[in-house]
């Protein structure tokens, strides 16, 4: 029994052991942090490379305001827009009988990146409420597929990629 108790006595070497372990763990921690950094960076790149989803933005506005809204939407990295002549049918019978109703509308189809939708939504909402006679309706339909890399690049307005490739 006494002998075993004597064995417990050497405490000083234990301390150095502890210090050594601390040093080792610090070294490991440093290495791990560096490794984490290395793994994080390429992940970011992957995220950037993933194809962005596209949506079809449909905007219905008065015909004489069509160009204004097309220009507005174009600011949000939109490369292709189609506008077609249409007429509205909201209830204005009395005005129509008097020949005062201006129901000429334009439907604008724009292909837009999904991540730009909140911005364009905000801008359109503001213009719909503030611009005189600029009231309109807008909504988006998600696009499920696009065929062709060049077509996708064109629709996403990715000019840099197209130049390099």
């Amino acid at each position, binding site marked *: 029994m006494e002998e075993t108790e004597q064995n417990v006595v050497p405490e000083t070497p234990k301390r150095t052991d502890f210090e050594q372990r601390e040093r080792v763990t610090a070294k490991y921690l440093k290495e791990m942090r560096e490794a984490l950094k290395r793994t994080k960076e390429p992940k970011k790149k992957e995220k950037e490379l993933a194809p962005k989803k596209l949506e079809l*933005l449909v905007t219905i506005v008065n015909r004489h305001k069509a160009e204004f809204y097309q220009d507005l939407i174009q600011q949000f990295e939109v490369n292709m827009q189609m506008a077609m002549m249409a007429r*509205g*049918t909201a209830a204005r019978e009395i005005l129509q009988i008097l020949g005062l109703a201006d129901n000429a509308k334009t*439907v604008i189809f724009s292909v837009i990146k999904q991540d730009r*939708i909140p911005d364009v939504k905000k801008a359109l909402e503001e213009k719909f409420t503030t611009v005189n006679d600029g009231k309109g*309706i807008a909504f*988006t*339909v*998600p696009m499920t597929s696009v065929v062709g890399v060049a077509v996708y690049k064109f629709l996403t307005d990715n000019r840099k990629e197209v130049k390099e490739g």
Partner: protein
Amino acid sequence: MEFTHEVIFCIVNDGFGDEAMNIAKKAGATGGTIINARGSASKSAESYFHIVIQPEKEIVMILVPSEQRDAILHALYREAGLETPGHGIVFSLPVDNVIGMNKSVGAENK
């Protein structure tokens, strides 16, 4: 993803757009947009289904809350469908990010 609104497309022969709109209004729609278009169905399909497809068409677009969709689709199918002179084809698409419908709708979409 939940869609609060749907857009109903109703493709009818030229001149039946307003009639389709009236039917939709009776079923609860408030307004719509009519676009002029041209059909291009194949001749063989025309003879097979015994319908004559006149090239001049009108596309009626109606944006409605999702819960109104079924009523309007049914009404259009019954009264402006393929069996009627309008030869209507009706379908709907779910849409999101709806702007400009009215104030209560805008509050829902926040």
